[in-house]
């Protein structure tokens, strides 16, 4: 009997120890993505990802423009939710990278004459919506968070503008919106995808260099993309587990 009592007490304390940390999380759980989503939409049923085929990108910049228009990203060339980089690997010397105005107007002549180029290609960049996002980890108030459908979002009404997340993002995907004075970034066009639409950049791409969809469902474009391409992610050594998957990515890309 006595033994039972000790056992009970022990398991009670154990339960308390388990529940306490969970209880501290309640305030953060209450900030969820429902505010953005359509009625009847259940975020638990989804897990989004993007695929980018480097071979298909022609550097036209339509994705950058579509994104700026769709998401009220400031026009000035210091704020981008998505941008395109041009890589030129010459036969001799160092790789040259540029992204004039984020590539929104396409790319002009290269600094290297064509016969000196060994290889050249365009790489669209975007928030990687990491499964282990360092930005979410460091946010002191929980204003940036991972939604239940796997999208990394920022709560505009809650961000204090400390910009620790900007420092923590290895990909340069975040900026401080000068008008709202809060941190801003790609949302995978959350207001569109929760209505079953595609992100603006995916829809605007004339060569289908970007594909988007559910990774858990085997019959989606992103699942085909992952099945039939050799996949790379950016900066894998940092263990952020990006959910933007690249096909035909060059080792020079950082």
């Amino acid at each position, binding site marked *: 009997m006595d033994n039972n009592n000790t056992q009970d007490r022990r398991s009670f304390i154990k339960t308390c120890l388990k529940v306490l*940390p969970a209880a*501290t*999380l309640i*305030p*953060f759980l209450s900030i969820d993505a429902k505010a953005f989503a359509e009625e009847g939409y259940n975020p638990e049923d989804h897990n989004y990802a993007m695929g980018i085929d480097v071979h298909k990108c022609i550097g036209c910049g339509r994705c950058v423009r579509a994104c700026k228009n769709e998401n009220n990203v400031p026009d*000035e*060339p*210091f*704020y*981008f939710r998505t*941008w395109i*980089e041009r890589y030129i690997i010459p036969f001799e010397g160092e790789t*040259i*990278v*540029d*992204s004039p*105005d*984020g590539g929104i107007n396409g790319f002009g002549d290269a600094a290297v004459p064509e016969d000196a180029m060994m290889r050249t290609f365009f790489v669209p*960049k975007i928030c990687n919506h990491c499964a282990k996002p*360092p930005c979410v*980890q*460091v*946010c*002191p*108030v*929980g*204003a940036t968070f991972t939604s239940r459908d796997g999208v990394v979002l920022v709560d505009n009404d*809650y*961000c*204090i*503008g*400390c*910009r*620790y997340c*900007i*420092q*923590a*993002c*290895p*990909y*340069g*995907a*975040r*900026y*401080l919106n*000068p*008008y709202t*004075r*809060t941190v801003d970034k790609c949302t995978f066009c959350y207001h569109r995808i929760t209505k079953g639409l595609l992100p603006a950049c995916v829809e605007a791409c004339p060569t289908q260099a970007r594909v988007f969809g559910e990774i858990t469902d085997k019959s989606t474009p992103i699942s085909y993309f992952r099945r039939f391409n050799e996949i790379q992610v950016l900066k894998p050594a*940092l263990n952020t587990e990006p959910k933007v998957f690249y096909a035909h990515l060059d080792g020079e890309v*950082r």
Partner: protein
Amino acid sequence: MEHLFERLTDAIQHATGYIYPNEAELHWNILIVIYPYITGLVAGAFILASLERVFNVKELQPTYRLSLLTALSFLLIAVVPLQVHLAHPERGYEMFTTPNPQSAMAMFGFVYLWYLMAVLLLEIWLDFRKDIIQWANESKGLKRLFYLVLTLGSKDVSEKAIEFDHKFGKLITIIGIPSAFLLHGYVGFIFGSVKANPWWSSVLMPIVFLFSAIVSGLALMLLVYMVSNWVRRKQNAMDCLDKLSSYLLYMLIIDFSLEALDFVHRLYESEESIHILSQLIGSKLFTSFFVLQLLVGTLIPFTFLTLTKLVRIGDTARKVLYFASGILIQIGIMSIRWNVVIGGQLFSKSLRGLTVYKIELFGMDGLFLPIAILIAPIFILIVVVKLLPPWPEAELSK
């Protein structure tokens, strides 16, 4: 807004190599440079106080109370640069109401409060309690009321009560040492744990921060002690200055060794980032790293302090060398903070380019605000020592 865009356009024009388009704006400015500088001074000054208290270093007795009050004056200001730097300062309280327990920065608020309330204020109060009661009895009017409030209702000055104050105070100091280590080691962790940034990401960062904090705090107290004596036309206790400068020299050597270890380690491992980091210290950080941090802030004061230990030098000359070392070390520590905070943002995370940071004079990003914040603790200290005189003769008169 136009001004911001002009500045960013200028930054892009002066950037070399490739930077990500969102990297035109440098986000943690000079306000974030002075934040670790000030907290470092606090931790260092407190550790000096505990040397006397816990380890019974008798020579340092004249600096004990002064160090506590200096630590308090700087600690009261320590969060100001952080708060002012927020893009939404009115939301700053969220860090206390809904902290993200995973965030290094969120926990800083609690470490700070713990240190302020549980360690520093309590220790100062216990140490001054008897004097406060006496001052309350001796003074009149508003002044009496002020001291009466400060007594928090305690009146007991029996030997037993004073004995208890001492014992409890010592316990607080013992708790205080790891707390001071925590306070500043923690600031180092805020930077050292950012894996996206190869200039910051280092396990040594909290330790380097800690020892540079002790160095800066000791140097500050050397200056505060000498200046306070000069203002009050009192003689410096030379054995106190000698002891203080000895500790300063030892800590400077440890701090320099740690910095050197970090530097050599990076060079030897020569990781992916070494190319851009070499460019960084060879160009943008050349003056602040090699000239200010290394030469002015470390090697020259090291030479001065070593001289005073090896060669027989007269009191006046020694005082000059100590004072000069104190000033130079402050310049050096400020450069360390600059090199960490600003240096860590001057290269692109693409590791392909360098960006620029131009300080302005006015406005939230200007130079005047941080200077005002840096001077404020000195004025606070002047007021605090008026209210709670830490001088030996004030103690003797009781």
